[in-house]
């Protein structure tokens, strides 16, 4: 692979002159971009340090920083990096890194290197095909061969006549670009077209710096909007966003796994042959971080046995109930009374008893969140639904706005939070309007409209956007006085209090451009994914991946005989992605988009070399597995998979 060296150390004589009269140096080298990631230890600092030492200079320290020109990340690495006694900073980097550094440091910054021009511009994959970014693509008349780059004279109207045996007269090792163009067009039978084309004049003013700088400004704003990084995948929400929620036809059998939440699996309290009613508790929480589970239909328990689990992909204990089709309600399903009359502890107890867990994906028991040991100032309801394709939360906001607001009030009361916020992305303006109207006269509840960006719905991103606070590394939202819950969870809390109904059904989006009949359904927990897919007209084509959840963080299912869980917000059918991982080329995009401000490129190497210490140094455990890095990776590396390997190893104490 080509190594795009962008800078080289200045000549010794020049460095000697710059060094004269300067002492107590700190040396910063950029770890370089666009080169194969083969070592983390480049010798850049060494050579310069030798020259400086020859001159008897005191070097107070040195550092290597990745992507020095990435201002926000560099600022973080730079904090407290330079010892007090430093008088001068020398930077080995391209001009961008040096300028970034110079803008940041309070003391003089000097360049120890020169930037070297890279011939033309290249794509992300470091191909040898070049594009000069002239702003007026000529490829349409030249059969896809660039006359600006491939002709040494950048002629636009045919060959100069100087070529000999197809070789350029300027550079005898270079093919004549216009001969290549001629041959390509001859092959395509387009020579007449070439002869007929009018004379071209290159418009050098087309690369308009004002346009570009304005453009750059707008992109910068978007990138740092609310929080660092993030991406904008194509949404595909139009497939189901206007389809109102309808109840899914009652299933004949439900398979209810004991593990539908973060923490210990629940313990069954029914046995085969038992008659159960809808809403009856069939399994109890097995510890503090665990959750009770209830029957979603009335009928007979026909099995208590391991069944395939959609998230772990393994068999795990489940209760199978054959429905009697009557949905007879359990006696325990009755309203808890007026919210004003319930104490905080009573609300938490109801939420715990009714098996309410986070419905956004992770399934963290809501009662545990509400019983925070730290003071809570804000309950933040997450109605962002930043995952593409999914529209379930959107529909919940539209169809159950009153319940969501009631749930929020209940959670505020339970946690003692004086304020509540419902955050909604600006691609759901109908929901924003509705909620704004409904909360207009509620003083301590605010609707925050967030500009669409993935992964907005991740709790740490949402807190940063709404509260401007950073959850500390390894910390929880409560460390900054916040509780973040999904809007569906708020609706479940409302149902638990107002109806006494435990969490036995949820709104699910069935969509994706390979699903025949997309829709939003109110689905009973334990309903078979296969039945739902069949009901929605099955999938289109044979190169289809079915996922539970969204396209970014959902779980791909090879076998559709799995049940829907409390935290399953969607079933999507999308085109199967084919990819082959190649070497990392340090394009830096993963670091650009990582909302946790990590450097995912390291994880790709460390996972393979089993360097768990390195994983820890690069804060692997802070990764929220949003998949932005993998989405953007120009080398198609399965980064999240490798991060999970590292996390597992660290959790196992390696």
């Amino acid at each position: 692979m080509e190594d795009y060296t962008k800078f080289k150390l200045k000549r010794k004589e020049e460095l000697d002159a710059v060094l004269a009269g300067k002492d107590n140096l700190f040396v910063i080298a950029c770890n370089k971009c666009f080169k194969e990631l083969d070592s983390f230890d480049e010798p850049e600092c060494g050579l310069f340090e030798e020259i400086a030492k020859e001159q008897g200079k005191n070097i107070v320290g040195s550092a290597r920083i990745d992507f020095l020109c990435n201002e926000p990340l560099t600022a973080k690495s730079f904090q407290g990096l330079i010892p007090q006694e430093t008088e001068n900073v020398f930077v080995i980097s391209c001009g961008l890194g040096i300028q970034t550094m110079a803008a940041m440091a309070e003391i003089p910054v000097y360049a120890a290197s020169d930037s070297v021009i890279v011939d033309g511009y290249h794509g992300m994959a470091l191909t040898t095909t070049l594009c000069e970014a002239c702003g007026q693509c000529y490829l349409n008349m030249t059969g896809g061969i660039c006359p600006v780059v491939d002709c040494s004279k950048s002629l636009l109207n045919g060959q100069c006549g100087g070529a000999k045996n197809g070789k350029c007269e300027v550079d005898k090792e270079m093919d004549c670009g216009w001969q290549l163009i001629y041959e390509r067009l001859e092959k395509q039978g387009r020579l007449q077209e070439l002869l007929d084309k009018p004379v071209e004049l290159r418009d050098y003013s087309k690369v308009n710096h004002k346009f570009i700088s304005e453009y750059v400004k707008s992109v910068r704003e978007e990138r740092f909007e609310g929080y660092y990084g993030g991406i904008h995948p194509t949404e595909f929400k139009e497939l189901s966003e206007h389809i109102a929620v309808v109840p899914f036809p009652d299933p004949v059998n439900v398979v209810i796994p004991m593990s539908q939440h973060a923490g210990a699996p629940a313990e069954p309290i029914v046995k085969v042959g038992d008659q159960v009613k809808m809403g009856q508790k069939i399994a109890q929480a097995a510890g503090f971080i665990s959750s009770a589970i209830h029957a979603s239909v009335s009928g007979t328990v026909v099995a208590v046995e391991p069944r395939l689990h959609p998230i772990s992909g393994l068999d795990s204990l489940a209760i199978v109930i054959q429905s009697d089709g009557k949905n007879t309600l359990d006696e325990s399903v009755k309203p808890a009374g007026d919210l004003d009359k319930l104490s905080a502890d009573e609300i938490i107890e109801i939420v715990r008893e009714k098996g309410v867990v986070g419905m956004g994906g992770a399934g963290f028991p809501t009662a545990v969140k509400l019983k925070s040991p730290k003071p809570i100032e804000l309950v933040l309801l997450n109605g962002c639904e930043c995952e593409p394709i999914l529209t379930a939360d959107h529909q919940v906001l539209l169809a159950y706005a009153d319940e969501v607001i009631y749930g929020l009030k209940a959670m505020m009361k339970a946690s003692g939070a004086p304020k509540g916020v419902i955050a909604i992305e600006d691609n759901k303006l109908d929901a924003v309007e509705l909620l704004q109207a409904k909360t207009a006269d509620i003083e301590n509840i605010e609707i925050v409209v967030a500009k669409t960006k993935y992964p907005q719905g991740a709790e740490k991103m949402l807190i940063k956007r709404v509260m401007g606070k950073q959850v500390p590394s390894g910390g929880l939202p409560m460390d900054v006085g916040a509780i973040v819950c999904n809007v569906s969870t708020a609706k479940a809390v409302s149902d638990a209090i107002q109806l006494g109904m435990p969490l036995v059904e949820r709104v699910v989006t069935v969509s994706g451009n390979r699903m025949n009949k997309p829709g939003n359904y109110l689905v009973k927990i334990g309903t078979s994914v296969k039945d739902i897919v069949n009901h929605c007209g099955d999938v289109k084509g044979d190169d289809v991946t079915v996922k539970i959840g969204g396209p970014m963080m959902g779980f791909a299912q090879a076998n559709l005989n799995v049940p829907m869980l409390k935290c399953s917000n969607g079933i999507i059918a999308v085109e199967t992605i084919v990819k082959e991982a190649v070497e990392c080329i340090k394009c830096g995009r993963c670091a650009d988009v990582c909302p946790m401000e990590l450097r995912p490129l390291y994880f790709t190497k460390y996972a393979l070399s089993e360097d768990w210490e390195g994983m820890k140094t690069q804060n692997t455990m802070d990764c929220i597995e949003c998949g932005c890095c993998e989405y953007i990776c120009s080398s198609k590396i399965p980064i999240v998979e490798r991060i999970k390997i590292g996390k597992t190893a660290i959790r196992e104490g390696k």
Partner: protein
Amino acid sequence: MLITQLKSKETIEALAQGKTVIINCHGCKEVYFAEHEADELQKDLNGVTQIITTDYICNPDNLKLQLQKHTDVINAADTILVFSCGVGVQTVAAQFESKKVYSCCDTYPLPGFQGVTPLNVDCGQCGECYLNGTGGICPITACSKSLLNGQCGGAKEGMCEVDKEMECGWERIYRKLEKLNKLDNMKYDAPKVRNYHNPNAEEPII
């Protein structure tokens, strides 16, 4: 790092002749790709037999892999329209030498050439970094005239005479040096002459 802008609708409509396959590259979408405008435009085109949206088509191996399952429809097509930067168009054209491959975008350079984060600073890759005497502000890119030996004298209230919305680079340099207590830098340096002969990129020292 590149950004793209769609060619005019008329130009693109004229290019779509016969059976047309469209290839969209979303690899640099986070930098810039007019996704929605391109979508709208493609809806109105005649004779489109397939729209393929993928990423990083500048990588020939990846391009081949992504197009594999569309081989038949591409073989049957008369025209391939590519919505990508110039690198992507040329990679497609090289892969389908006998097909008419057309570019639907113009490509512009983007300041900074690392990753996606667009920068406020620019580097002219001149090959002889002048930042040492200028407090880390580049006279090549921050001065509209790329002057190396001080201000031209045309600035008014700190703004450049060429572009009134641009700050005078040399005034910025002066202020920075003043702050660093290094104004002597400007006084005693011998006049600099820019050496347009760049060091050879193929022989890096480091």
